[in-house]
């Protein structure tokens, strides 16, 4: 009797231990997927098509479109009842690349995910589905697929086109009597900034803009603003394209002085001009939401993606934003950098059904009328494809980018081809040290050059 009791206890313990270990090893979602599939099968028996339920996991980085993308997914699900789209968003200040790697390592590989430039494409090559046969390939704008093409095969669909420049508040410029049309090079920009600065300091604009305290706000804490975007304007004159910068073994900083001039201009006329080290604590929200959106500053270096955020705070400000060029002294002074920030790609290792559904969803989003409506009017994207002729960008900044693009006043985005981590972790932090006064500009250049060669 006693013995059998012991045996019972023992076997229960072992069972418990084994159960714990094995349930810990199986991935939960697989289980759920099967359950869901079984249930839906029963539900779909009345339908003529015995299609199996497919779940497509989207892991994307654009926080600004997260809600609207989920709505678009719902609409797609309504039209395709056998497909379920799960949208997950990690982005903004977070490092999407880190989250994506963690996601893949956890075993829950997404079906649709995002890749940036050449380095990403190379890193993820084993996980990228060849999309060359997709219908949107023929619709792509000239040269727009170059960043996603390897050996003639196309591996990703561009999100959109984005542009950034010196985003300025047209109302403030008008009231200060400054003609933005005349700002076509560095000299005229500097003049305008000085004139505006003098007016702000004299309190002339105080009545209309009580919060206005400086010309610029510069988010040096966000090293992508400094290390990627600011530097790109200058390095795009050295490299020409992201593929060139990706192949380059070293960086010369041919127009390093022009870069210094752009950084100094933004720092010297910022609200922290008297102690520039404080710029290192200025983040995106301070620059955009608590900067240009509340009319605390007149110009910031940001792109058309800020439109939605600014509109949520003050529609009147958002609709009166425009772009001034980022003038690279002595080289190209009238242009803004325009490029493809991210691409959609499909996981090669997903099941065929998932891949088909994923491709169809991307197709629907970018080529159907309903999808286009989302892309233009809800995401505020500037489309990377043809066929959007009757759908003009609605927001002020999108229009401004389109105007620059039409006029040919653009520079490419070469920061996609920087060595991994170099732009943000090396150049961006060196610029922080420079702003804090710890090192000279020459040291910024020399250590950034050395690190580039080392990381290649």
């Amino acid at each position, binding site marked *: 009797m006693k013995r059998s009791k012991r045996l019972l206890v*023992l076997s229960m*313990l*072992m069972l*418990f*231990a084994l159960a*714990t*270990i094995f349930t*810990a090893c199986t991935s939960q979602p697989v289980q759920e997927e099967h359950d869901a599939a079984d249930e839906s099968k029963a539900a779909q028996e009345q339908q003529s098509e015995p299609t199996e339920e497919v779940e497509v996991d989207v892991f994307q980085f654009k926080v600004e479109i997260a809600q609207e993308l989920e709505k678009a997914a719902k609409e797609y699900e309504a039209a395709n009842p056998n497909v379920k789209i799960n949208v997950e968003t990690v982005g903004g200040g977070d*490092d999407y*690349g*880190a989250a994506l*790697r*963690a996601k*893949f*390592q956890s075993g829950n590989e997404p079906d649709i995910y995002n890749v940036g430039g050449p380095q990403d494409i190379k*890193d*993820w090559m*084993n*996980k990228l589905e060849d999309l060359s046969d997709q219908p949107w390939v023929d619709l792509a704008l000239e040269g727009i697929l170059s960043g996603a093409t390897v050996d003639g095969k196309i591996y990703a669909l561009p999100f959109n086109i984005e542009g950034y420049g010196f985003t300025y508040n047209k109302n403030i410029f008008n009231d200060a009597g400054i003609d933005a049309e005349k700002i076509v090079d560095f000299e005229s920009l500097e003049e305008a900034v000085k004139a505006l600065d003098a007016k702000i300091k004299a309190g002339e604009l105080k009545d209309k803009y009580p919060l206005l305290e400086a010309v610029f706000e510069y988010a040096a*804490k966000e090293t992508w603003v400094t290390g990627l975007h600011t530097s790109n304007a200058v390095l795009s004159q050295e490299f020409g394209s992201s593929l060139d910068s990706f192949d380059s073994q070293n960086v010369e900083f041919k127009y390093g002085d022009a870069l210094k001039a752009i950084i100094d201009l933004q720092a010297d006329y910022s609200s*922290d001009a008297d*102690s520039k*080290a*404080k*710029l*290192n*604590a200025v983040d995106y929200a*301070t620059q955009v939401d608590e900067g240009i959106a509340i009319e605390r500053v007149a110009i910031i270096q940001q792109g058309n993606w800020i439109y939605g955020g600014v509109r949520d705070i003050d529609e009147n400000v958002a609709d009166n934003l425009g772009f001034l060029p980022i003038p690279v002294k002595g080289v190209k002074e009238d242009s803004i950098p325009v490029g493809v920030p991210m691409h959609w790609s499909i996981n090669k290792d997903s099941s065929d059904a998932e891949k088909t559904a994923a491709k169809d969803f991307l197709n629907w989003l970018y080529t159907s009328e309903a999808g286009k409506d989302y892309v233009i009017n809800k995401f505020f994207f500037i489309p990377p494809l043809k066929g959007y002729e009757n759908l003009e960008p609605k927001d002020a900044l999108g229009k401004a980018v389109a105007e620059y693009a039409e006029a040919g006043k653009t520079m490419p985005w070469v920061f996609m081809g920087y060595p*991994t*981590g170099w732009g*943000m*972790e090396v150049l961006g*932090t*060196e610029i*922080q*040290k420079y702003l*804090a006064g*710890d090192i000279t500009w020459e040291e910024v250049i020399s250590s950034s050059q050395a690190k580039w060669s080392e*990381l290649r």
Partner: protein
Amino acid sequence: MKVSKFWFCVFVLPILLAFLSVVIIPMFMGIYYSFTDWNGIGNTPNWVGISNYIEIIQTDHGFRESFVFTAKFAFVSVIMINLIGFGLALLVTGSSRLNNILRSVFFMPNLIGGLILGFVWQFIFTKAFDSIGSSIGLSFLEGWLSTTSTGFWGLVILMSWQMSGYMMIIYIAALQSIPESLKEAAKIDGASAFERLKNITIPLVAPAFTVGLFLTLSNSFKLFDQNLALTNGGPANSTQMLALNIYKTAFTFTRFGLAQAKAVIFLVAVAAISLTQIYYSKKREVEM
């Protein structure tokens, strides 16, 4: 004898298996990866020998700076947290009627997640401090987190605020286990309040100090969330602690092999420091 061996296995085996599968095996896999150039995506990694370790020792200044910063931070925060925690414990074991409320209040910060605390304090340091500083003219309150020293003290303040309540609970338990009779006897013998604290309370609380120092020391060394949320290593990576440095090596520079090598060094260092501390703290404990 035979039976007890059998039961020993029955009770230890399940937990041993669990421990093996989630701690020991991953640790050895990590050590293996530290000898490779793995990029984190699943391509087969190449064996590179000890070159990762050589790189860390010879050329990786960032790691060394993080190590020094972390050590400094751990030193200061261990002292601060334990002093404040012990002080709070003395305060709330007195005879006030507010004791229970105060205990909950002091413990509360510990219930909030590190990331959220980091963002809340970021707001306090960069916005609240700034406006207080500019309105009453104290310039040292302005521009917090934009320099290395304010970033450092920001982290210390945040951690002290969060961890002190937890240490307080440990010290309360220890303080309450001291027999009243000992203190009373000392009082009758004419010992002052300070002498009673120094010669009776502190020696008898020594075991709790061992625990408290160990917890704060290892937590300070392993700090990640608060560091990420409060400063994210900025400005210019000068407030980057070891865990964050390892994380960035892995996930930003995508050098998982190198990051694993750093993690192995990190593990050895934290273990060595913590064990040394326990050894010396144990020696100071007294039996009643």
